[in-house]
């Protein structure tokens, strides 16, 4: 059972660093404080960097879900504008 509700999703599998985080950040901009964003990303560089970048900006990383198809879904709660 998921202990969160996803308010918005963004797919960043079509871009590479640094556009991965840029695209995720632009999507996060549209959310209200307390809302949750799901970021669909490829394995590798995005999984390494995007969660860390969100944390550095004061957002709360709730979960990183391995879809076992080479992609992940990063669940992030917005804490900072």
């Amino acid at each position, binding site marked *: 059972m998921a202990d969160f509700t996803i308010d918005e999703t963004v797919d960043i599998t079509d871009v590479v660093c*640094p*556009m991965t*985080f*840029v*695209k995720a*950040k*632009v999507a996060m*901009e549209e959310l209200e404080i307390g809302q949750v964003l799901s970021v669909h990303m490829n394995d590798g560089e995005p999984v390494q960097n995007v969660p860390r*970048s969100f944390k*550095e*900006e004061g957002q709360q990383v709730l979960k990183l879900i391995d879809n076992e198809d080479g992609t992940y879904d990063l669940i992030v709660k917005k804490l900072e*504008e």
Partner: protein
Amino acid sequence: MAFTNEQMERYSRHIILQEVGVKGQKKLLNGKVLIIGAGGLGAPAAMYLAAAGVGTIGIVDADEVDLSNLQRQIIHGTADVGKAKVKSAKETMNAMNPDVTVNTYREFVTSENIMDLIKDYDFIIDGTDNFPAKFLINDACVMAKKPFSHAGIIRFKGQLMTYVPGEGPCYRCVFKNPPPKDAVPTCKQAGVIGAMGGVIGSLQAMEAIKYLIGVGDLLTGKLLTFDALKMEFHTIKLPKADHKCAICGDHPTITELIDYEQIECPDH
């Protein structure tokens, strides 16, 4: 206003910065900066502001591009010699970034036109090369309550300071009056190392960008000087705003703008 994919990519290095982000970039796109003088200082300032996506940029200059300008005025090219500087500058900026609206004013600032020129802009950049214009810009910005960046360059030296209404001294608090005619050489007479415009004009663009985004500390109450031969930057803390200042003091004695006499260059 949502970003297009192209804008997301163009401004990606800004958006990544925590201090800028999506909100800061939108502030830049909604920002309006007026650059007075499309020369050594105005050229790099205009180019960095255009590249940064400052949505509306005005440029004021009555001159045409001269071959002797090209050693430092990097917004103009050899093919632009003889063209109005504002037209040449606009072409370069439009080519750099289609997001930017460039307004051109082919005139010199005077007591007659300056209030009208500055009224729609958020921040003013003084990129002029003479004291009458510098005092005029200061006095007009104080009267209109507009923030501006002052700068001057000569030989291997440059300086700049920022005025924000109510947050420190104005240019006249510090320098009082234009120097006597012929006491100070103009840069036509004295020369200037070309890259100096790039250093100081870029710092002016930096001040405008920080002001528009609302981050960091501006050069209010401070004068930054750069000596290229010694390769030394100094930031000098200035005295507080002068209560007796003729323009920004408690009882200003200057109530109308002044057109000081321009110092004529013997070689022109």
